[in-house]
């Protein structure tokens, strides 16, 4: 077929049947060029066809002009972790052309903008040059949109070759442009134009196809930052202070976005919660502590550098027993590190945040849906225990679109913990003291400013105090107060979300992991099972750990603690709670800024088990 020849096809047309709904695509482009819209259109369309899909954005820490990759995984089996192999590459960026070419799997498909004139030293793949410039100019779209439109060209071509349904694409664009007809049509026309061209010129059958199924039925697509924000709003958030930082900004920005719709008082027409952009993280946490102290449900969000700056104030909140929630959307550290790469490296810092004997409970959501759930649960627990709760996710979960179960409305009423108002104090038959452990559970009763009862006021401080909040340097008083704080921490073990355990027939070994690595671990467990190495999987959902985790370790010959940092921070912390099991706990760490993959987990465990 001459057309095909002219397109410098380099490989025999494979006779094999096309692979359906099971492959990965990598798009290599530059940031700030509008490729985000193109890529989101693709995964939304695939999702609309009912196909499980995930998209991961690997982007640089600048605003415009540097290489960016977007990998889309399509998996009928619902495996949505990043895949180590990519079967389709779309090369739009000359700078990374060679690199992207190399990344392609054997028998893979290489689509590239034909204005990139670089040789293609591989004969084990199929190449499709795309006349991007030509098609763009034919589109006679406004000049300033040209760059952006180039991206829609590959959407059209890919849609054509994979068989993505037009109405699915239309729905994707309709959503993206909030129903605005003009941009929808503009983009749809480009896509059609490119698709037509492809259908005419790429005559041979494409080795990968998508077909509508219903595996994505009953799911939504969202990112963790938005879910965390919504969860907080449904958790009765009243005050949020923040300072911008990647990858956490999305959470407070979602609060700003959804406040008018969700928390405008029908009567007064006023907002029911406050958002303040502070001058830095020292101030952000200070504001949140002030609000939490004064009886508002208060939340802040940050990432590593900001968390470091919150250290001193977090210690005060622990010691003065002030309920607040801190979201740490982790990025790669130490230091400024890789601000746009993912990591689970703040466990130690977050757990011990503060000088002296400070310890905090950590919530560790393992899905976007759980970000919503822990959004409201974390505020409840913070107020019940009168202490800071930290919720740790990472860039991958916070910023990428995940397919997830719909957000579920809270199944328990809002818990405000032990607060006394005027009438409560009037009816008290005992003498209230702010730090008096009346109930023996270590949790005292608190009052908040505005309470007009003449006995309601007390003076809060970060220095030593007695049960009635009076200043004290007395050794016994100090020691007793710190023991009570510890009692609350032990109580937290029983109140934080319990781990989720997935068992397998005949498993002798186990995995403990948490957070965004869940999809990779689940997939790896299937592979390991298939290779005759069944593994039980405990997904930790919070610290401190409860007995389930200790029992799980007891019941296995060996337990792999898998996390995305260098030092095996979680492995360290949990082994402290079971010294007699310590030798069974094996730390496996993955620490290069990319998302964990099932292959890595499977291979690493195989190697370990061979030993």
């Amino acid at each position: 077929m001459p057309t095909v020849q002219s397109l410098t096809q380099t490989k025999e047309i494979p006779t094999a049947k096309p692979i359906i709904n099971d492959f990965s695509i990598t798009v290599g482009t530059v940031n700030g060029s509008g490729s985000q819209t193109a890529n989101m259109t693709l995964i939304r369309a695939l999702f609309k066809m009912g196909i499980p899909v995930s998209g991961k954005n690997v982007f640089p820490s600048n605003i415009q002009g540097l290489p960016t990759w977007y990998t889309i995984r399509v998996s009928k089996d619902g495996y949505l972790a990043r895949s180590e192999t990519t079967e389709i590459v779309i090369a739009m960026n000359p700078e990374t052309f060679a690199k992207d070419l190399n990344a392609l799997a054997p028998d893979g498909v290489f689509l590239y903008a034909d204005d990139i004139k670089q040789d293609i030293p591989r004969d084990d793949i199929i190449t499709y040059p795309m006349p991007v410039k030509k098609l763009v100019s034919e589109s006679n779209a406004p000049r300033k949109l040209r760059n952006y439109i180039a991206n829609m060209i590959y959407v059209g071509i890919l849609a054509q070759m994979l068989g993505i349904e037009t109405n699915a694409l239309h729905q994707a664009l309709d959503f993206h442009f909030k129903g605005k007809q003009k941009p929808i049509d503009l983009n749809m026309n480009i896509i059609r134009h490119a698709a037509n061209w492809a259908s005419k010129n790429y005559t041979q059958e494409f080795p990968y196809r998508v077909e509508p199924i219903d595996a994505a039925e009953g799911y939504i697509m969202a990112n963790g930052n938005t879910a965390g924000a919504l969860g907080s709003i449904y958790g009765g958030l009243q005050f949020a202070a923040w300072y911008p930082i990647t990858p956490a900004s999305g959470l407070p920005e979602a609060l700003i976005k959804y406040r008018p719709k969700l928390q405008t008082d029908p009567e007064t027409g006023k907002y029911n919660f406050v958002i303040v952009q502070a001058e830095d993280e020292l101030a952000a946490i200070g504001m949140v502590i002030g609000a939490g102290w004064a009886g508002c449900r208060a939340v802040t969000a940050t990432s590593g550098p900001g968390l470091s700056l919150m250290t001193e104030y977090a210690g005060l909140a622990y010691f003065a027993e002030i309920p607040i929630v801190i979201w740490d959307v982790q990025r790669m550290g130490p230091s400024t590190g890789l601000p746009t790469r993912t990591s689970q490296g703040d466990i130690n810092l977050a757990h011990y945040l503060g000088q002296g004997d400070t310890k905090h409970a950590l919530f560790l959501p393992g899905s976007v849906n759980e970000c919503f759930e822990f959004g409201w649960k974390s505020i409840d627990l913070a107020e019940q225990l009168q202490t800071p709760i930290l919720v740790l996710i990472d860039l991958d979960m916070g910023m990428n679109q995940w397919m997830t179960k719909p957000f579920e409305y809270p199944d328990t009423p809002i818990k405000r913990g032990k607060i006394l108002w005027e009438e409560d104090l009037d009816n008290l038959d005992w003498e209230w003291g702010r730090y008096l452990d009346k109930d023996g559970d270590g949790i005292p009763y608190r009052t908040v400013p505005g309470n007009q009862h003449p006995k309601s006021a007390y003076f809060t401080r970060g220095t030593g105090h007695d049960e009635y909040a009076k200043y004290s340097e007395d050794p016994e008083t100090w020691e007793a107060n710190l023991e009570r704080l510890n009692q609350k921490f032990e109580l937290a073990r029983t109140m934080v979300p319990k781990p989720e355990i997935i068992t397998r027939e005949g498993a002798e070994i186990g995995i403990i992991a948490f957070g965004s690595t869940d999809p990779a671990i689940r997939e790896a467990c299937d592979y390991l099972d298939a290779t005759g190495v069944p593994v039980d999987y405990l997904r930790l959902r919070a610290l401190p750990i409860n007995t389930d985790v200790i029992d799980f370790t007891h019941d296995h010959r060996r337990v792999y603690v898998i996390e995305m940092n260098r030092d095996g921070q979680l492995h360290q912390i949990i082994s402290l709670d079971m010294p007699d099991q310590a030798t069974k706990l094996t730390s496996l760490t993955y620490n290069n800024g990319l998302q964990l993959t099932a292959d890595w987990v499977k291979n690493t465990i195989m190697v370990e088990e061979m030993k």
Partner: protein
Amino acid sequence: MKLNEIGLSKKDYGGAPSTLCRGCGHNAIVSQMIAACYEENIPPEKVVKFSGIGCSSKAPTYFMERSFGFNGLHGRMPSLATGALFADMSLIGIGVSGDGDTASIGMGQFKHVMRRNLPLVYIVANNGVYGLTKGQMSATAEEGLTLKRQGQNLYMPIDIVWEALVGRASFVARSFSGDPKQLKALFKAALNHHGTAVIDVISPCVTFNNSDDSHHSYAWGKSHEVALHELSFVPPAKSIEVKYKKGETAKITLHDGTQIILNKLAHDYKPTDRAAALQLLEKANRKQELVTGLIYINPEQKTIFDIDFLPKSPLNRMPVEKLRPSPESLDEINATMF
């Protein structure tokens, strides 16, 4: 026992016994704040006290035990107050800080609370030294000041009033612990102001920085103070009756209708023009005058409360029903998640 209009005695405005040094300027701040609140008939339960860390920041412990108080972290009082005061906007916030607490470690939060114009009486108990850590130079120490163990200060001092003026504070005053009458009057004005009211109080540290030639000593204050005016007040109710009397340089009507009357002393000065205020300060600094009084006020400036579109009823008393949006709304949200 004498009672004020809301039936409280001065004792009802008292706090724990002071553990500050005998003669410490901060003690004057404590007693004048008690007097001001008592005379202004402010219910202690309507006041919330904030401070950072320092001898000065201990002051709130010593007045108005019946008010909530939070002794926070060094240099971080303003953020604490910002969060807390949103909980019930009917409360009156009083923040007490030191020169180290505000001008050294606290410069950032000091500047930013002013530009947000948080309704807060912000007192800087300014002694030019770190008292609680035993006598190191603070950022307000004058050039050339010599202290034991420290040697001489050769850096330029930070001027709290000047910083407040360019920082766009809506109320800027300076006073002196050695002038309790004026101190009380300015506290009253500040308590009635709607916005951040910065009061730079020269408050001598008798233990570490009170030598006669030190610019933060009683002696220096007494010999260099130039009071701009005498202040008196007319509550909202009576304000109509007021006529201009001779010697009055200005009448300022506050947010709540209260009128401040300024009676000319040193200068014929109107505290409503920031440019003039900057001039005044510049001159005073050159002439080494300790200008005291109400230096600038703008009762109209928007506060952070006006800005954030919030209900008048206290957030911290909001019923739980209101705190959580409806189940239906979540269905709608889920429908848009893709």
